[in-house]
């Protein structure tokens, strides 16, 4: 059994450094360390490429294409490009770069991929409605004492625990 590949950083140490990055993001850019905002910028960029006229008229996308700037030329998109690079760097160092389907052992690959796609769709809707995800809304929001961040925390994890109970068989094998 190769245990080396699953050697992870101490979670408290990782959390401490992650906290420093949140501080840095606020200090330099005045931005929260986020993720879903970057996805939104990319989606709007695609729409703007396909139909600039539509992007100008839809009230959700219009503010992002109003000043003639490219909607993908944002701090969050650059941050996400960094995330891709950083994750590859870490995985390469730990020897974890490998194509694999992550899942509980009793779930088939096909089922896992459909569920991941469905879960992703829910996140796509939820983040736009709720104004951010676990990093930008909750973690960064909590770091500046924003009520919004704590509502997000309670909603995502509170409802998460309820749904987890309902969908236990996706992750835990029945004995």
């Amino acid at each position, binding site marked *: 059994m190769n245990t080396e590949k699953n050697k992870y950083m101490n979670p408290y140490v990782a959390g*401490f450094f992650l906290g420093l990055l949140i501080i840095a993001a606020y*200090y330099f850019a005045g931005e*929260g360390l986020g993720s*879903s905002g970057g996805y939104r910028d990319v989606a709007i960029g695609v729409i703007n490429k396909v139909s600039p006229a539509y992007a100008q008229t839809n009230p959700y996308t219009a503010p992002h294409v109003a000043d003639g700037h490219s909607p993908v030329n944002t701090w969050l998109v650059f941050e996400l490009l960094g995330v891709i690079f950083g994750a590859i760097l870490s995985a390469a160092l730990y020897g974890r770069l490998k194509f694999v389907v992550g*899942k509980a052992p009793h779930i088939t690959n096909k089922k896992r991929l459909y569920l991941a796609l469905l879960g992703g769709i829910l996140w796509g809707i939820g983040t736009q409605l709720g104004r951010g995800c676990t990093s930008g809304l909750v973690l960064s929001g909590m770091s500046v004492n924003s009520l919004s961040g704590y509502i997000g925390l309670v*909603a995502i994890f509170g409802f998460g625990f309820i749904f987890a109970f309902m969908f236990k068989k996706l992750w835990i094998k029945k004995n």
Partner: protein
Amino acid sequence: MGPLYPQELLNPEYNLLIGAIIGVGFGFLLEASGFTNTRKLAGIFYGYDATVIKVFFTAALTGLIGLFIMHNMGIIDVTLTFYPKTFWIPTLIGGAIMGLGFVIGGFCPGTSLSAAATGKVDAMAFITGVLLGIFGFIFTYQTAWEALRKSGKMGKVDIAQWIGIKEGLFIFLFTIIAILTFIVFQKWQDKWKSKMSKQDIDELGI
């Protein structure tokens, strides 16, 4: 005094460059702490893996205490940042949708990007879903979401002020809650670990 970019103390190119560098650190930490492993992430909901809650609350505490000190020392003016406005109704409903997405999809947007970048095929499916969901949201925005998304508007609300206590006291209370949470989740993980197979323990790296 920070924040630098909103006060035009940092030019836009450097701001984006620093954003990318901060992102590298973010992606590195997500991968290094095991957040690309979907089973570890789902573990928070069943108690078999306490990693997520430890990383998450430690990061929040560090950010919270650090920014509180810096704000009071005049190193950063938090009110000049893009401080999130509270819209409690859509955030509560959106959060519930995200909670369901977390349990079904096993990722969140940041973790899925790190995971897809390092070869996790399920994370690639998840990201495809996120983009599809955002497209769907945008195309149905006016008919389905606009009114809801703008409801429950409260403005920029500080939770300590909202509760009616001093900021420092709130941070102290949150620190106590975080430490108690660490203890509870550690005990929960230990309980699982005692009856898990060696293969599962190795895969989770706990």
